């Protein structure tokens, strides 16, 4: 670290060893319920190097409560999460994105709806960090995927005060609140990567953040017709509009290789998928009668048609998943357009 860097400001605690550090952190409510790597000064300094930023740099300010997110606190929480120093630029980009007003970080953190930031990483940084875009992509097994998402969660807990039962009022939450981060399989995809579709130049890295509820896995291995295949995803989106929220917002589709091959054979690009899904994901309010929500159906709104997306561009199409199996995922938004997906450039030091 440079000799002229500002000193660290965080308070320090003496503990006998890593086990005792964990007991302290559990006792104080500073973890997500899993053990952490003790954030020693030496480790935190190496993470500041990884970010290439001064510890007092403010990455962003959570707009409602006005809480600044400093690089120092992010580095501490990233050490705890089990990250490596070189992951820092991705974490910083994700948090910058989350501090944009349109992401509504406070609302999606505290809501009873219980969302989690879903992170999609694009560009060369995926390979540099050896991120996973294939087998078990929404599950466990890859250090960068797991710990980058976890670092964001620990920042929400420790810097923003998003502790369950405190500011975080989630009724259920979902498993993605431990970690919810994937890479797109750009090398094995016929399509333009998500970040480039959203304005990031080719060759640059970026992270896209969506306040999302739990993924809904779909299965279709029995058609070569792209429309039929999408009808399965559409059914899951419509189910979400009936059983969860009817309001339009950013949905994400995670499309595995086996499904991508069907689309590629038919010459379908992501734009074709977005247009088809936009046209088909429609629900009339009167359908709420069939799912136990008749009290919200009135003469005035019964025939009103609702769309899952305000426009085709609201749909995030992500190529990811293992090489075999007709399993994809619909990842619905937290609550319509109350939070909007944001894509942020990853700035490498």
């Amino acid at each position, binding site marked *: 670290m440079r000799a002229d860097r500002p000193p*660290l400001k*965080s*308070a*320090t*605690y*003496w*503990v*006998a*060893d*890593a086990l005792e*550090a964990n007991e*302290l*952190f559990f006792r*104080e409510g*500073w973890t997500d319920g899993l053990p952490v790597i*003790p*954030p*020693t*000064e030496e480790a*935190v300094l190496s993470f500041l190097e990884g970010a290439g930023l001064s510890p007092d740099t403010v990455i962003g300010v959570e*707009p*409602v409560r*006005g*809480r*600044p*997110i*400093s690089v120092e*606190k992010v580095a*501490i*929480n990233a050490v*705890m999460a089990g990250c490596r120093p070189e992951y820092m630029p991705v974490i910083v980009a994700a948090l910058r994105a989350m501090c944009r007003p349109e992401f*509504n970080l*406070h*609302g*999606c953190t*505290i*809501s*009873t709806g219980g969302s989690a930031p879903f992170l999609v990483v694009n560009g060369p940084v995926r390979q540099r960090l050896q991120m996973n875009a294939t087998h078990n992509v929404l599950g466990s097994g890859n250090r960068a995927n797991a710990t980058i998402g976890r670092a964001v969660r*620990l920042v929400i807990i*420790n*810097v*923003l*005060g998003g502790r369950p039962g405190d500011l975080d009022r989630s009724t259920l939450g979902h498993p993605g609140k431990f970690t919810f981060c994937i890479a797109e399989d750009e090398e094995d995809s016929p399509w333009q990567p998500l970040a480039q579709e959203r304005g990031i130049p080719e060759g640059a890295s970026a992270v896209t953040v969506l306040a999302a509820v739990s993924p809904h896995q779909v299965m279709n291995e029995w058609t070569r017709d792209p429309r039929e295949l999408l009808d399965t995803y559409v059914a899951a989106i419509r189910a979400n509009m009936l059983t969860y929220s009817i309001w339009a917002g950013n949905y994400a589709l995670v499309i595995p290789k086996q499904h991508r091959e069907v689309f590629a054979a038919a010459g379908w690009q992501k734009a074709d998928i977005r247009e088809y899904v936009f046209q088909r994901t429609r629900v009339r309010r009167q359908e709420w009668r069939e799912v136990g929500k008749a009290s919200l159906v009135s003469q005035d709104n019964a025939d009103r048609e609702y769309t899952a997306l305000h426009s085709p561009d609201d749909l995030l199409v992500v190529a990811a998943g293992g090489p075999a199996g007709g399993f994809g995922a619909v990842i619905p938004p937290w*609550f319509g357009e*109350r939070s909007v997906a944001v894509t942020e450039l990853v700035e490498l030091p």
Partner: protein
Amino acid sequence: MGLIVLDPVYREERERHRLARALPSLEGRTVGLLDNGKRNSDRLLDFVEEALRRDYGVREVVRVRKRDPSRPASPEVMASLQGCDALFTGVGD
């Protein structure tokens, strides 16, 4: 030997907010009721307004509704509450 570990928690560097001094009485006062925009929050505040007028002698009640419960009140909403001596708000659901 041992380890020295760093505090992961954000701590306010200075006091950013201070509680206002409580009013000795609501008699003859103007009270704002800020509806957070959730379904049925208006019904809860109807009840509060009734109680304020009936039991506490409140002179005037200013009712304002936020457009979105998960976002802060707009500057216009806050400006409309400037003349109030006290304000009730909360999450109705």
